[in-house]
């Protein structure tokens, strides 16, 4: 039982980092990343390939993953932000994620195609006894999560964080104040990307093998649930949101004990349906999440929403 909890805890840790990355890019930076699954797989494959094919150790491999994903995200942001509209950016990231998926599937000389990459070594394998490995693994994962969390908090409260919030609130005003909006956003997206890479690396080292089926678009739904449940923009909330989603996921595994007469495929489909319904319920009834972000209250500017009504800018 303990070791099950430790394993779940480990998964929760790198899932939380993934959710934090989405929260950072979207919640703070205003850039929604629908290609999350693709970038996550890019991180995992980078770390895996560095470890297996280049024999890199866990630090180098993970750093490599962070670098690769961070750089790609930066480039995507740089090229796409000419069109700052949220809708278009979302579609582009969806497309990039899809492109990454295609590359993984087709370039099997590199990625092993549908078979994936196997034999990723345990990061601290030789020096840790088998019995205590789950604890060590969880401990390391938790430490990394903590470090990420602190790092993001430092950024949020720094001058750069203020610039980010200024840009998110009113881009034009921020630009006239001389803040280089484009570069700030590129940096945000790149830093978020590096975090995605980190999570991907951790994923690879946890499962010790990766294949394309681990990186479907359901991931983005989970990540959104975590971010929305925790309150977009609030880092601590996102972590709790990730825990909440993991609990939900694991809990639904036991569904099969309650529903007779469905086969494995149907059960899998049912779980995803429930996740989807959960996401919708969250959006409908608790879009602001359960925790709040600290914000300065300012006088709202009138904005005409899609229905034609005049509202305060959200």
């Amino acid at each position: 039982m303990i070791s099950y909890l430790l394993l779940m805890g480990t998964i929760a840790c790198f899932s939380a980092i993934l959710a934090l990355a989405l929260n950072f890019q979207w919640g703070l930076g205003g850039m929604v990343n629908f290609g999350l699954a693709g970038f996550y797989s890019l991180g995992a494959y980078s770390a895996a390939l560095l470890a297996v094919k280049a024999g890199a150790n866990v630090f180098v491999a993970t750093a490599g993953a962070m670098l690769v994903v961070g750089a790609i995200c930066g480039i995507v942001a740089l090229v796409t932000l000419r069109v700052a509209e949220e809708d278009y950016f979302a579609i582009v990231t969806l497309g990039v994620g899809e492109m990454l998926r295609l590359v993984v599937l087709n370039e099997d000389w590199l990625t092993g195609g549908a078979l994936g990459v196997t034999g990723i070594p345990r990061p601290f394998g030789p020096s840790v006894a088998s019995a205590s490995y789950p604890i060590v693994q969880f401990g390391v994962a938790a430490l990394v999560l903590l470090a990420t969390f602190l790092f993001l908090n430092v950024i949020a409260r720094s001058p750069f964080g203020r610039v980010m919030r200024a840009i998110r609130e009113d881009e034009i005003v921020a630009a006239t104040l001389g803040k280089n909006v484009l570069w700030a956003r590129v940096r945000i997206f790149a830093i978020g990307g590096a975090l995605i890479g980190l999570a991907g690396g951790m994923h690879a080292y946890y499962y010790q093998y990766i294949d394309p089926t681990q990186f479907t678009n359901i991931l983005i739904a989970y990540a959104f649930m975590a971010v929305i449940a925790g309150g977009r923009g609030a880092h601590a909330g996102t972590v709790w949101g990730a825990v909440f989603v993991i609990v939900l996921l694991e809990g639904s595994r036991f569904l099969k004990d309650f529903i007779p007469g469905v086969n494995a495929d149907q059960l899998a489909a049912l779980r995803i349906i429930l996740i989807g319904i959960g996401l919708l319920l969250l959006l409908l009834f608790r879009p602001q999440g359960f925790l709040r972000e600290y914000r300065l209250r300012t006088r709202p500017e009138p904005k005409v929403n899609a229905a034609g009504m005049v509202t305060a800018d959200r």
Partner: protein
Amino acid sequence: MITQTLFNGLVTGAIISLPALAITLLFGVLKFPNFAVGSIVTVAAYAVFALNVQLGWPLLVAAVVAAALCGAFLILVDSVIFRPMRDSGSITLMVASLGLGLILENLARFFYGNAARSFDLELSMPFRVGALRMNSEQLVAIGMSALLMLAMYLLLMRMPMGRKMRAIADNPSLALVRGIDRAQVIRWTWMINGTLLAGAGVLIGMDRALEPLMGTNYLIAIFAAAILGGLGSPLGAFVGALIVGTSSELSTLVLPPGYRTGVPLCFIAAILIWRPQGLFGRPLIRR
């Protein structure tokens, strides 16, 4: 070889023009990209399957009934899911549509499994017209798509409801003020969506097969077509679809086939970099 590929591209373009038009109309009226469009096509196709194969109805009748059911279903979905979120901004709506897409795709999987199915249709033999090899399903695709496009054109340009739809897309608050009943226009838009998407479902089911991912496979291509043509421009959706369809097919001549869906992506990227409003759209003014 090239003419054959072009023809195949034309067929693909005809097929995706329907959902491309659907999402561009929806975007004009409701101002968000509907990521569930692929899954709706899938579910509509399975609905036709249920009527056609399980109940034994002729395909055309099944298609028409499914289209009406699909439209009604979408109106229901809108009132339960999207209407409460109308004030919440397009990201919320996008994420909701993503969730909806997951639900629908897996509903299809739950009830029909992952195995490929097909409609109750006599197998037609391919025939030659000049140098081109084609089959009757492909001609049906081109014909049906052209017919529906024509009907949509007449609706949008000549009929009061079409004018109202264009007016709301142009200026939502002015539309309110000029007395346009927004709720009614929204219902019509979803009904039209249901028809177009059911049509696409039938065509894809005829051209390939029915399986849970049949619609989502086209998701990127559909958006590429709509964006290339200009989100909100019906003519653009049609032209964009033809361009995306033909270029995807042509790309198989030079690229490995696994990358066929990559071509629409490049279109999206290129368009958004050089001409965000697409070929026929106008620059989006967020007021």
